[in-house]
């Protein structure tokens, strides 16, 4: 088994002979919208389990209304950067 080079991102597993996704007709493709937000949009609210000050708790974004929030996603715990 070849040794995997250790990188910053979590390596993705692949499935052999995975069924190909059906190719969609052109008209349908146009309807597909990229998910995601952009600036000047309301930040989608969420509730998520969290670790905070030694305890397990939940975080709800809308609990922070009235304050500025920096929300930082990152690829994974124990990654390098």
């Amino acid at each position, binding site marked *: 088994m070849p040794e995997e080079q250790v990188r910053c991102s979590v390596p993705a597993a692949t499935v052999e002979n995975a069924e190909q996704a059906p190719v969609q007709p052109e008209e349908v493709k146009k309807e597909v919208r990229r998910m995601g937000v952009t600036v000047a949009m*309301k930040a989608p609210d969420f509730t998520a389990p969290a670790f905070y000050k030694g305890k397990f708790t939940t975080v709800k974004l809308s609990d922070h209304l009235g304050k*500025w*929030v920096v*929300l930082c*996603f990152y690829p994974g715990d124990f990654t390098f*950067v």
Partner: protein
Amino acid sequence: MSAVADRFQEFQDLGVDVISMSVDSQFVHKVWNDVELSKMVEGGVPFPMASDGGGAIGKVYGVYNEAGGVDFRGRFIIDPDGVIQGMEILTPPVGRNVDETIRQIKAFQHVRKTQGKEVTPSGWTPGGKVLHPGEDLVGNVWKEWNPKDAYRK
């Protein structure tokens, strides 16, 4: 994440709450904090480390990477009304610049405080030259501001 944690006091002083988020469980967050991050940041991570298991939150924010099953390095500045004012998304190998995040927060806070009467040109930092949008400024920015003023206090 430790770089953000290290500057937490500055975020607090600006009235900013910080939330970190990855697809790891809150249990893994605990172990990462306890065995590693607490050695880099005194007292450990001082803000909630949230879990986005399955990537549902990353998907709506447009940072989820299906192939890797992880959330890309997305950073969102959200104002007190819950509106996204700034965002940045990086691929995994390059880390954020926390200085720039703090600079942007200060600029957005300045604009909000002046209700948009003052806007902040490129590289603005507190005390730097601001611009006053209006009909008099159209075509006259060159009289008020020079690119050499960017990044200058």
